[in-house]
């Protein structure tokens, strides 16, 4: 069965309170964009705290940043960017009624997301071994070591919150994959894929800010 372009037998449900599918789609997209705006401000609080302390304690934050594994961080960045590519391709496949490609790209996105989380877990493990987790036998050699506590607290809070969003994203993708497998999506209606895509891209973009701020701070030394 190599025919990808099968029209879905399902009629997309028009919710009773909308006038037509177009309105329903517009509402869903605007809703997701607004939600992403709230997420931006949610992360924004931590970013603000980080920026303030980064400017105040450049030495400590630089030293602490240099203990992060830049190789793993870079690999993770590539992994996540690629996952956004596969997600975009998934949305395209949905828009062109290519069910199998849609499923394949969704799965690829999920695999890459899981790889990202795995590498993150490895990094966290390294931090544990190096006694860089605040509150768990924290020890730091460097200028003003008590301030390194700040760096690592913010590192774990920010990347942890990000990882939590990735995990939720994987959950969402699972649902999308299941719905795609059941043939629920069509060129005419694939709104959940679109808004999941928006969410996934947002999580990616947060990482694209996290990575240079946390890892690349003082690398030139």
């Amino acid at each position, binding site marked *: 069965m190599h025919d990808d372009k099968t029209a879905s037998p399902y009629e997309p449900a028009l919710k009773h309170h909308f006038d037509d599918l177009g309105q329903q789609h517009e509402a869903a997209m605007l809703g997701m964009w607004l939600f992403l705006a709230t997420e931006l401000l949610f992360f924004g609080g931590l970013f603000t705290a980080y920026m303030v302390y980064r400017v*105040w*304690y*450049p*030495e400590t934050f630089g030293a602490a940043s240099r203990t992060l594994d830049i190789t793993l961080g870079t690999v993770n960045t590539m992994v996540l960017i690629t996952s956004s590519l596969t997600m975009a391709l998934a949305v395209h496949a949905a828009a062109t009624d290519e069910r199998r490609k849609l499923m394949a790209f969704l799965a690829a996105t999920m695999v890459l997301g899981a790889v990202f989380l795995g590498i993150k877990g490895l990094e966290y493990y390294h931090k544990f071994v190096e006694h860089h987790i605040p509150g768990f036998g924290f020890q730091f050699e*460097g*200028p*003003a070591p*008590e*301030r390194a506590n700040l760096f690592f607290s913010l590192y774990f809070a920010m990347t942890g919150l990000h990882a939590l969003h990735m995990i939720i994203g994987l959950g969402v993708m699972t649902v999308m994959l299941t719905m795609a497998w059941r043939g629920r999506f069509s060129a005419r209606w694939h709104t959940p894929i679109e808004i999941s895509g928006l969410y996934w891209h947002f999580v990616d973009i947060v990482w694209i800010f996290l990575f240079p701020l946390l890892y690349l701070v003082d690398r030139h030394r």
Partner: protein
Amino acid sequence: MAGKVDALYFFLVAVSAFFVIVIAAFVIYFGIRYRRRAHGEVGTKVVPSLALEIAWTIIPLGLGLVMFAWGAQVYFNQARPPAETLDIYVVGKQWMWKFQHLDGRREINELHVPVGRAVRLTGTSEDVIHSFFVPAFRLKADVIPGRYTTLWFNATKAGSYHLFCAEYCGTKHSGMVGTVVVMEPNEYQAWLAGGGGEGSLASQGQKLFQDLACITCHRADGQGRGPVLEGVFGSRVSLNNGQVVVADEAYLRESILSPSAKIVAGFQPLMPTFQGLVSEEQLLALIEYVKSLTGLAPSQPAADTPGGPAPGRTTPARGPQSPSERQRQNPKK
């Protein structure tokens, strides 16, 4: 100063009263004049007026800016102490106010000051945020753990005035009250003469300097492992990362509590931290001692921003070259 605040305040009261009365008058007048007299009576068509909208946007805006400017001016003067001040340190802690006079006298919950002299209070907190509030002086400033904040006043009338803590700080927040006693000059002299026997704050600091072995590394002859402290207060200090900072109270405090944060150029990060080993009051004594090594009178301010930078924040460079710079230029043998 209090009079200036009151003047602005009563101006604001007058303007507010005016607008409240005017609006109330219009509402009441329209409310009566245009009340519905018959069931089903309709209103009369009223044309919108752009001119009116603009007028009642611009006029309040203008009034607001006048109020802003006046308030800002009063505030600016409140924030800038004069050059000559009688300096006193205040440490807030749950739930009391501790004062340290430079001559070594300590007071708890009571502050004696002379009338007619500018008094500058430099303060911090030992625990949570408190706020030093003397209603009679129309003055308030938070004291914050980890930094120094300043306020100044010139009491014009002798008397006893309430001192309150104005930032909620826990159980006995409303018990953290005291008195500011403003005395006529002769009474103040008499009070000073009955002083405590501990010696001046700077000499207490000197004793600590020896007890804590600071003197081992910070030798006046430049042979120590640490920078010379004579003349350092208020000077520009070059750090090993190229930055230049002013050695003010916040810098000194940070150097004692978090010494590896800023390393003076040409020196090694050898100094251990004294976090947990010195109290806020001991820190103030040490700072006064270092100030006294300047050759300036201990009451000269270094940085004149009222808030004081947070520890670790660098201030723009100004002031004479620091002794440690001279020390570097003449390397020790």
